[in-house]
């Protein structure tokens, strides 16, 4: 894709739960939509997710959590990014999220929340908007020699 600027997204699974079907489906849908996607695999420590987000210079971090531990884990990722001076990276959360927890996750710093059953046609354009809200950063520069 010459001259195309591809937004970079990290899809991450914090905690111990191994349900990665949703994370992988979203990762692939984003890739198909032209994003540069990094997937951490399951059982990632919060510190490792923050480090990867910085190292890969992503615009958005998508957390997938189905164990019920979403509030604590999301708070820790948001705080970790802020402490590392990367508070501009948007954090979105998907998984088995009770409706009552959506505003609590937003208050904890999540830019968007996608409970189970949210269509890809909703998720992908929203993440594109979040990613493009940061012009000039977190976009892959096309290789000149390509």
């Amino acid at each position, binding site marked *: 894709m010459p001259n195309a600027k591809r937004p970079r997204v990290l899809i991450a699974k914090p905690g111990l*739960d191994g349900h990665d079907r949703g994370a992988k*489906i979203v990762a692939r849908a984003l890739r198909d939509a032209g994003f540069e996607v990094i*997937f951490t695999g399951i059982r990632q420590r919060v510190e490792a997710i923050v480090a990867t987000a910085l190292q890969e210079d992503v615009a958005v971090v998508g957390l997938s959590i189905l*164990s*019920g531990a979403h509030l604590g884990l999301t708070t820790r990722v948001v705080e970790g990014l802020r402490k590392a001076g990367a508070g501009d990276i948007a954090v979105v959360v998907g998984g088995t999220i*009770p409706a009552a927890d959506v505003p609590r996750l937003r208050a904890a710093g999540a830019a968007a929340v996608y409970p189970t059953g949210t269509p*890809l046609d909703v998720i992908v354009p929203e993440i594109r908007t979040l990613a493009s809200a940061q012009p000039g950063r977190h976009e892959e520069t096309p290789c000149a020699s390509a």
Partner: protein
Amino acid sequence: MNDFAQTVQTGQSAEAAQTSSGLPLQPVYGPRDRQGEAEPPDPGRFPFTRGNYPNGYRGRLWTIRQYSGFGTAEDSNRRYRYLLGQGGTGLSVALDLPTQCGYDSDDPEVSDEVGRVGVAIDTLADVEVLFDEIPLDRISTSFTINGTAAILLACYVAAAERTGVPRDKLTGTIQNDILKEYASRGTWIWPPEPSLRLIGDTIEFCAAEVPKFNAISVAGAHFRDAGASAVQEMAFTLADGVTYCDTVLARGRMTIEQFAPQVSFFFYTHGDFFEEIAKYRAGRRRWATIVKERYHATSDKAAMFRFGCVSGGASLYAPQAQNNIIRVAYEAMASVLGGVQSMFTAAWDEPFALPSEESATLALRTQQILAYETGVARVADPLGGSYFVEALTDATEARIAEIMADLDAHGGMVRAIEDGYLQGLIADEAYRAHRDIEAGTRPVVGVNRFTTDEPAPDIQAYELDSEGRETQLKRLARIKAERDGAAVRTTLAELARAAEGTANLMEPLIDCARAYCTVGEMVTALKAVWGEFRQPAVF
């Protein structure tokens, strides 16, 4: 409500011409559709296409086994004693994720997950509380445990010993299937090679010391929930079964006859009715054929494919959630027509909550109505000889064999897991199914057809109350303070030393359990020798 007008469009469509796994279907089947295949022998006769037993379910109904376990050892012990008081004869233990992944409850990294999806076990002391006043010589216990299965088995044997129950009186099962953990369920710890060695150790230990205990339940269910199709689920599971048998036989200490009867299987039944029936009939025949042809087993008993299943799982949906009652009922019927030995029917509210007492009871009643009212259990393999079912069984078995041959050509299951090939196959299928549902080409009532605006029911995750967590942490702190520190160091050092060689690790693990080493300490000692699995992040 004018959605009902849609029925006109769904009568006959292109996608009805294949099963959900993509096997092509004719409009009608007749005697010429079996391509010269012989009629399958009677039920109870090799290769068991028509079931393991000549009288089907007349001699013995399938086992109705519902899964439960939560909170602290005290909470679960109370629940178990209640269930046994109501006439139950078996227990099914759910463990929390820290226990399954080898972390202790006081590890700060996992504090959010202690006691959340099952009971927390840190040391032998928790196991003693879990089974307090339960006669382990008369009650069979099934543990859904994999990465730390050998450690939990060691604790169980040690706990039984404390109450005077000898090893050969213990009955039950550990899941102990690590290969599917790497590709789907996720509670891996060490790399495949040492993990397979540890499974070999448990199989040999059980065959020699705990002969009434099933050392392994090879599970396809989790491939399915991760997105695999029905035929992939069966093919991947049989390929795992082959890998375990190869592992044990390569050690040269046992024959297939000695351990194969203690190997069982476990699956999900989803909604494509005839495909599920054909999956089980084909799987039974393929496994029996493999055991005879590849391992030259002489007894039919070694070749018998015994399986349990869950009806529900990823085939259930949150919108119009009570529709799940109907789905589970059809799935349960398909499982029985496929010849299942033991079944768990999921509750309709499973997609968004721990089942209520009411929904759990309804799930149980679903099986009881099937067993006692519908009459499907009266005659062995009632669909045997159906042009369609036999042809679909043949086609399913052929596709299973193709997938297994492809995995073989790739270098086997361990290789396919280490380089992410298997995970890629599952992710491809999951993505395809998801897109089909979103596009509406795979109809799901209440999700992409006949939808309504009713709000999705709210979910509430079960959380161990702070009192329960406190009980668990206090017991762990007390055990750590009171145990003999020298014995802990000695037994852990001996475990690590044994792990460096090839000796069976079960006795060193039992010694660690007796010394009240924690699950986390045993796991860490083995990590120091074996390292950790590095997951290929394929999507």
